[in-house]
């Protein structure tokens, strides 16, 4: 801070001194270009080019040994996704189920947790730590941990179930439970995210507003539905869209917990992209799937940008 206060004063010239930073004489109007040129080139190489390449590949019969000899097939790769041999529809349905459950569960759970955290002041930091802990951990470790908690024979969850007389469950090892078991872990891991966003929203509600309503005789239930919730509507939309977009991109948990199995029970779009592109080296199919996913996510992102706009502008 001292530097800034000094920069108003007359000694600034002495403070600027003769270091490397001040010997670097860059004309003012050249500076933006000097910074942005490398950044834009970088963007082109590592982001725009890969997208264009994905589009190009999705329109071709891609030959791995000699990509330049690839044959133009228009939308063949896309229409092939609908063939019975393709796993696209399975993965698409699984992804929709996953996204739906994860979003519908995480938004209200986040809000409830925030309402609960809001009741505590001195001990809030401790509870915040517990609720948020799974988010900061690597998903790979979370996946490994739950794979074991879920273990059909030796896992503690099944031991507890046996204790209360419920038969042992297969969880991630059986097709009809696997997807739900993975999404449950994902929900458990991310409750804290919505919770802290909602908590910030709750804390920004002016005290006087609630006080005034209370004086007017509103009970707590009315307070929540008539005042708190409407004031959190923007926050709720934000959390919903962020959660939706995040849910489409699940990969780590699936890769480590089930690798798409058993059978194809937990194939989701991102896992199918990896599987088609790397394991089966069908780059055309993989690119087509990734672009379908891109379009879906883009729609939600545009909604998100619309929602965020009021915050951007001054």
């Amino acid at each position: 801070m001292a530097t800034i206060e000094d920069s108003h004063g007359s000694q600034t010239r002495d403070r600027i001194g003769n270091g490397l930073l001040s010997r670097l004489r860059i004309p003012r109007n050249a500076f933006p270009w000097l910074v942005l040129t490398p950044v834009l080139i970088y963007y082109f190489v590592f982001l725009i080019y890969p997208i264009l390449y994905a589009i190009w590949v999705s329109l071709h019969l891609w030959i791995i040994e000699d990509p330049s000899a690839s044959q133009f097939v228009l939308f063949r790769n896309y229409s092939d996704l609908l063939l019975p041999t393709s796993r696209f529809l399975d993965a698409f349905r699984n992804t929709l189920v996953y996204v739906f459950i994860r979003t519908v569960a995480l938004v209200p759970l986040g809000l409830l947790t925030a309402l609960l955290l809001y009741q505590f002041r001195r001990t809030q930091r401790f509870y915040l730590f517990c609720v948020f802990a799974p988010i900061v951990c690597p998903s790979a470790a979370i996946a490994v941990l739950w794979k074991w908690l879920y273990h059909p024979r030796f896992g503690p969850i099944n031991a507890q179930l046996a204790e209360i007389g419920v038969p042992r469950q297969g969880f991630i090892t059986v097709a009809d439970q696997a997807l739900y078991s993975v999404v449950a872990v994902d929900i458990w891991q991310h409750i804290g995210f919505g919770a802290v966003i909602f908590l910030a929203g709750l804390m920004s509600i002016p005290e006087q507003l609630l006080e005034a309503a209370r004086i007017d005789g509103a009970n707590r239930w009315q307070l929540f539905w008539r005042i708190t919730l409407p004031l959190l509507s923007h926050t709720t939309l934000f959390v919903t869209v962020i959660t939706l977009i995040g849910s489409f991109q699940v990969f780590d948990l699936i890769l480590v917990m089930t690798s798409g199995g058993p059978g194809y029970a937990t194939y989701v779009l991102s896992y199918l992209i990896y599987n088609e592109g790397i394991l089966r080296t069908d780059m055309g199919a993989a690119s087509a799937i990734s672009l379908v996913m891109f379009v879906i996510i883009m729609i939600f992102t545009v909604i998100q940008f619309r929602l965020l706009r009021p915050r951007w502008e001054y």
Partner: protein
Amino acid sequence: MFDNGSAPATMGKGKLSFERVVLTLVMLAVAAGMFVPFIWMVLSSFKPYQEILSLKPTLWPQGFTVGNYTTLTSELPFLRYFLNSAGVSSVVTLVILFTSSLCGYVFAKFDFAYKELFFMTIISSMMVPFAVVVLPLYFLIARLGMLDSYLGLVIPFMVNAFGIFLMRQFMEGVPGDLVDAGRVDGAGEMWIYWRIMLPLSLNALSALGVFVFLWSWNSLWWPFMIISKSELRTLPLGIATLAWEYATRVDLVITGATIGVVPILILFALMTRTIVRGVALTGMK
């Protein structure tokens, strides 16, 4: 945010009411539900193989042992994985902080042709899911000969659109007088950036730094794509490999996951508010 400054409206009046007790019990149950799995994991890492596999699981280790750690580190170089993750994540974080703040400064305090067009081009990349670019990026990195290298882990993540957006927003709030005063006194642009803009942006930089570091530290997909040499694995990739290659050695797998989780939880305990604020502000995951 989260500074405990304002008392919540529904706080009890200091007396221990029935309602207060119920609330506390519910909160404790939620906190336990989130944290007990970690405690169970850490305790299990000190149990011998037979105890973990017993049909009646124990919570507290009956036959306490550190054997899992010595066996694990002799089977796989977990210390190396840890250092790899620390190195890669630190470099990625520093590079992104530098590029984001420099671009943020340019977008916040300069006027030039096509400024908004460039800005929107960069920002719009935020909507590109990693799944879309991961395969082309893989082939690009392969053609650059950077598979199985630290460089390959860092190169695709040197510029971050959200970081640029955040730093521009923040730096637009820095009074223009400060920048002008520096210019009048003959300071170069790099000097102004380094000595005026950066010190004034520490809040935004720390939030962004926390977000980028955690995201890089936890990432699995990209290392999984390009790393096949054992000694170059990052910690999440090491844990995943352990789960695949030693699937039946649950004692080792649990121990590996513990090594992956405990350091980050300690860091989180030390700076809970900074990390929560960083993640909440930046909308991680």
